[in-house]
């Protein structure tokens, strides 16, 4: 089961919904890994919207698991990319070409949804008009508040900043602009006293 119900948290922490088909002239769908399941569920509700859909899919460690099933939905355009970073230029181009009536659907990990949402917001789409559905890993994209470096796919609290090496604790405070949660030095007041890392939401 790839759905996870996040516990209630502070006001800056994003909340995700369930994708639903909405009327639109075009449908941009960006998903990673198990996010594909949300698109398949969407198709089960209304397969017709896929005739005007552009799917951008990053399988990550799911490999080929979902690729053929997504392809079978016969979207107007279907792109499978190796990483989110590799797909960004394409996403920007699609958004800059977009017209009124574009629906945006994001599904998968928080890091993917946050970054893609940021691109859509930069293109002038209000975040409240963008649908999101979390599927798969609960890993987080974290910004180190000290060195500003981003560490992707953080699975434990605390964790080591991949840029400056500080031990950071995982906050729920979230910046849409950075598409990242905030990581703060865990042993600042007592250097060296770093708690044993615990897997997120375990």
């Amino acid at each position: 089961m790839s759905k996870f119900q996040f516990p209630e948290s502070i006001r800056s922490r994003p909340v995700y919904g369930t994708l639903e088909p909405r009327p639109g002239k075009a449908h941009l769908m960006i998903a990673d890994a198990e996010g594909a399941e949300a698109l398949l569920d969407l198709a089960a509700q209304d397969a017709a919207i896929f005739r005007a859909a552009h799917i951008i899919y990053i399988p990550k460690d799911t490999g080929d698991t979902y690729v053929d099933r997504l392809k079978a939905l016969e979207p107007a355009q279907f792109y499978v990319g190796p990483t989110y970073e590799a797909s960004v230029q394409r996403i920007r181009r699609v958004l800059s070409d977009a017209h009124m009536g574009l629906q945006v659907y994001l599904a998968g990990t928080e890091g993917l949804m946050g970054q893609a949402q940021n691109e859509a917001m930069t293109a002038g789409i209000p975040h409240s008009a963008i649908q999101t559905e979390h599927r798969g890993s609960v890993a987080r994209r974290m910004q180190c508040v000290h060195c500003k470096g981003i560490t992707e796919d953080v699975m434990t609290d605390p964790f080591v900043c991949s840029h400056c090496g500080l031990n950071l604790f995982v906050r729920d405070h979230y910046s849409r602009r950075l598409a990242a949660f905030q990581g703060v030095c865990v042993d600042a007041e007592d250097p060296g006293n770093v708690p044993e890392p615990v897997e997120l939401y375990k």
Partner: protein
Amino acid sequence: MTIQFNEETFRDDYSFRNSDWAIKRFPFPFHEDSYMYSVNMEQHRGGPEGSVYEKRFDVDEHYVSEMRDRAIVLADDPLRCQSLPHMTLAGWDTLELIMVSKSEDYPDLFELHRDGDRWRWINKPMGIDHTFTFLDETTLPCGPLEYITRQAQGDYAVLDQRNDMLYMDAGMITTQADWSLDFDIGMDFFEWHAPVPLAHEMGIFKRALKFLLNVQQGAPARRLNWTMTVNPLLDTSPENYHKWGVQKSTLTPQNIGSKQHLRVELQTFYRLPRSNALLFPIRCYLIAFQDIVTIPKWGRRLHRVIRDLPEELATYKGFIDNRPMMLDYLSQYDDGLPTSPGVWPDLDTEPPLQK
């Protein structure tokens, strides 16, 4: 000049000191012997002569040294001052408000001469005499918000107002109580306050937002907030927390009186005329425990407030570990006598310490 500016530091050797004048006018934040969150807004229309509330933008003995400290912070980390592209006009509004207020309130220190858009600004304490064109960024060495807030004590958040909401869309933040402009920029009012415990559940932020959305031009408001800081460190930023956090563990019963500081924010709120943004100056005042207790009423009261503060608040404000040591120190200055209502020192009417 009427104010003798201190030569002092807010880092390294921490030579910051408050004169007797600064101690007596300190904005003590507790009007009674206990504390809980409240919206506690009032009009910012002056105050008793000599108090920090008297002028629109208070200038005190720390001015020149604080501005030097800000320049150091900005050189280390330019991201402490940011302005989203749509906020430039609000920056000019801020520049105008501060220049006009300071030149009117402190004519011996600041002068503003306006000839149409041609403005001449003289800042005597900082040795600045600069002519520029209002609303023309190319005539300033940096953006208008950065330019003027390099010359004004306190942090400045500039809040855009749209959709019945306030957004943290610009700011100059170098003396903050542990929050990051770089992380929070662009957030709405509830989002940037998200980490604050209890207050959301109490409805504090909903009421505060409603009030702030309705602040009118020419009718500024103010409130106080407070926390604790070990050493007179202005830059208690999350960015540098891995450097200063360890100072919290340097308190001892011997040094607590001089090292532990009460940190008070005088927060004011101004509607800006062209942009309709809300300017939110957050002015930080620091005072050592040993100076607070020279005012008998404040010594008695601070002990009671810190003793009875809910644990969540002591944790959020970052002094839960040091609270027992603080109480050991402060209890020496609490003889159990009643205290007069209100924040003022009442030196003439309150009895001296009976211990």
